[in-house]
């Protein structure tokens, strides 16, 4: 098992290098760079002449190595990550990339984690309920809700909820804190304020995930319940509950356990759109701003980070699967 884990981790390294190269390449595709917009800013707002602005922009390019060919830029970036843990400089936020990402990571993980927790537990339990009460009124209601969950674009759900809560119900939403708490030190009142703001994005992001898990769980459990070993278990005289929870659910839950590995990056990206709409201080809006402003080190590091989380997540999922399913363990 341990050698398996080590081998898998070593295999991931060249893969991640290639991924980072491609990510870096995609980010350099758009014409111009951050300094082009910086230059425009200088001429329009600081009142410099075109020549002066160009000179300044070129100076900045030299300082950050943006004038070098693509491969040299990439090599320098990776070298600094590996040797110094330095992900580069974010021009848009005027901070180092790691400072931008780490300052936002906490809230991202908080929202993503809560959504993950809700979508797995609610999804699985509603799925089990729907499958065991097939074609009942509740089953139909949940099925329709699940269809709604996968058919509404996240950004529109966020917009619509924001509209309903702020204009129809008169509640302040958007952001993670009320104005008076943003700069305040942590206190009980601040935590309560956070909770008051947090539930909306959690519900919006969690809705789609719950719907997906519920559909998977329902159809899997229905498949499993039709198998012969379930009949045998029933014939042995086991209680219905035991049959379902001890025999059927264990097999039906496998795809959900397997998908858990990709769930974290999925949630970080799922949280992204909602955060952009609701203007939350998470990594999603930072990546979006970086893309729009061609702040390539920030955007590249974000893509890399998610790829790394995905690799680790897949590894953990494989281990979890081996733990749930002895057949995988013994092979």
């Amino acid at each position, binding site marked *: 098992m341990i050698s398996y884990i080590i081998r898998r981790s070593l295999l991931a390294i060249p893969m991640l290098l290639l991924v980072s190269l491609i990510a870096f390449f995609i980010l350099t595709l*758009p014409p111009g760079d951050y300094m082009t917009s910086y230059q425009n800013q200088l001429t329009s707002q600081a009142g410099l002449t075109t020549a002066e602005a160009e000179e300044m922009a070129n100076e900045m390019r030299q300082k950050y190595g943006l004038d070098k060919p693509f491969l040299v830029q990439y090599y320098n970036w990776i070298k600094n990550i590996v040797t110094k843990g330095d992900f580069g400089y974010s021009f848009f936020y005027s901070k180092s990339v790691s400072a931008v990402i780490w300052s936002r990571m906490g809230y991202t993980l908080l929202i993503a984690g809560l959504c993950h927790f809700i979508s797995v537990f609610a999804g699985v339990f509603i799925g089990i309920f729907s499958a065991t009460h097939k074609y009942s009124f509740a089953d139909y209601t949940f099925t329709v809700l699940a269809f*709604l969950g996968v058919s509404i*674009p996240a950004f*529109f759900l966020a917009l619509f909820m*924001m509209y309903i809560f702020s204009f129809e119900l008169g509640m302040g939403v958007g952001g993670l804190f009320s104005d008076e708490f943003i700069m305040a030190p942590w206190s009980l009142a601040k935590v309560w304020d956070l909770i008051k703001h947090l539930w909306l994005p959690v519900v919006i992001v969690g809705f789609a995930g719950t719907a997906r898990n519920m559909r998977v769980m329902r159809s899997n459990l229905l498949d499993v319940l039709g198998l012969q070993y379930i009949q045998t278990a029933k014939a042995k005289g086991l209680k219905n509950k035991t049959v379902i929870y001890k025999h059927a659910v264990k097999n039906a839950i496998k795809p959900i356990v397997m998908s858990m590995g990709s769930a974290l990056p999925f949630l970080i990206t799922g949280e992204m*759109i909602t955060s952009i709409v609701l203007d939350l201080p998470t990594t999603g809006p930072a990546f*979006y701003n970086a893309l729009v402003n061609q702040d390539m080190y920030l955007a590249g590091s974000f893509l890399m980070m998610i790829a790394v989380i995905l690799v680790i997540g897949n590894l953990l999922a494989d281990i979890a699967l081996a733990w749930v399913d002895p057949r995988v363990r013994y092979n």
Partner: protein
Amino acid sequence: MKKEETKERKKYLSNKEKIWRRYKKHKLGMIGGTIVVLLLILSIFAPFFSPYDYRKPDYEGAYMPPQPLNFVDEDGELSIVPFTYGVEQGMDPETWARTFEINPDQKYRLQFFTEGWEYELFGIFESNIHLFGVEEGGTFHLFGTDKLGRDILSRIIFGSRISIFIAFFGSLLSAVVGSLIGGISGYFSGKIDLFIQRVIEMFQLFPQLPLMMALSAAIPTTWPPILIFIGIVVVLSLIQWTFLAREVRAIVLSYREQEFVKAAQALGANHLYTILKHVIPNCFSHIIVVMTLTIPQLILAESTLSYLGLGIQPPMVSWGVLLQEASNLQTIGQHPWIMIPGAFIFFTVLSINFFGDGVRDALDPKSN
């Protein structure tokens, strides 16, 4: 004796009839399919159904709220032909906000096949006949107007063209690429398979949504509309093809040792011919199912990209572009009707999902 035999025969259904029978049983699929057909007609004949020119601004009538059709007038008299009231603009003396007030004396009756703005259909037919409109002098903005006074209903109808077709072409392209690469991978197996599988794994290592955003940010906004359209189609399919490729590979792997493949090879068919003519047609039902279920996802993806300003660029309209105007909380608070395109995305995606479910049950009864 012979007659009885022919009677027996009649009971056998062809494969197509069986598929149709199974599809008809799926009620939600039937409803979804009907809505999909209606939407297609609506988008193909968009100018005919649009009462107004979707590009023409009317600065006087900006942000006009939706105008309902009335059957009963102020005096309580019933009118068989529905009508709209004349609308007069005013200004709130205290807040200086523009107001729209109904003038009950002016009534404009609804008419069908009216003459309106001129258009060309498919670049061939010129016409100015529209499905509906109101009597001259009146306005009929069923869903209101946007910030430049353009009719939202007409913009939604034209937006459906891009929203639906971009998703359709995206899923078609990813189906072609995915099934071809998946077919090759499964058919040859061995080293080629190993290599292709690594490439696919690498693609899947990228987070989907950020990658899609990064790729479409790389499409220069200065490109002509048709190139941007193609660019977005390529981006969408680049993300999606790996899933189908994996599934097709798995199916083809199970076919490659079977007699019909061996027979084709023995008859001297080359590899490409065998894959295209014998192997992939056997996966068709599966490919079609995946394709229909991919379309709604791509509609969602395109609308998200366009909403963020990374996808389709104005003056082209898609539902995502229309919702871009609704990105400001203040704006939607004052003019909530600009969110209506979102409802269209939702219903379209929902009905294609139902349709896809029906198609899956009809083509691939074992899978469910």
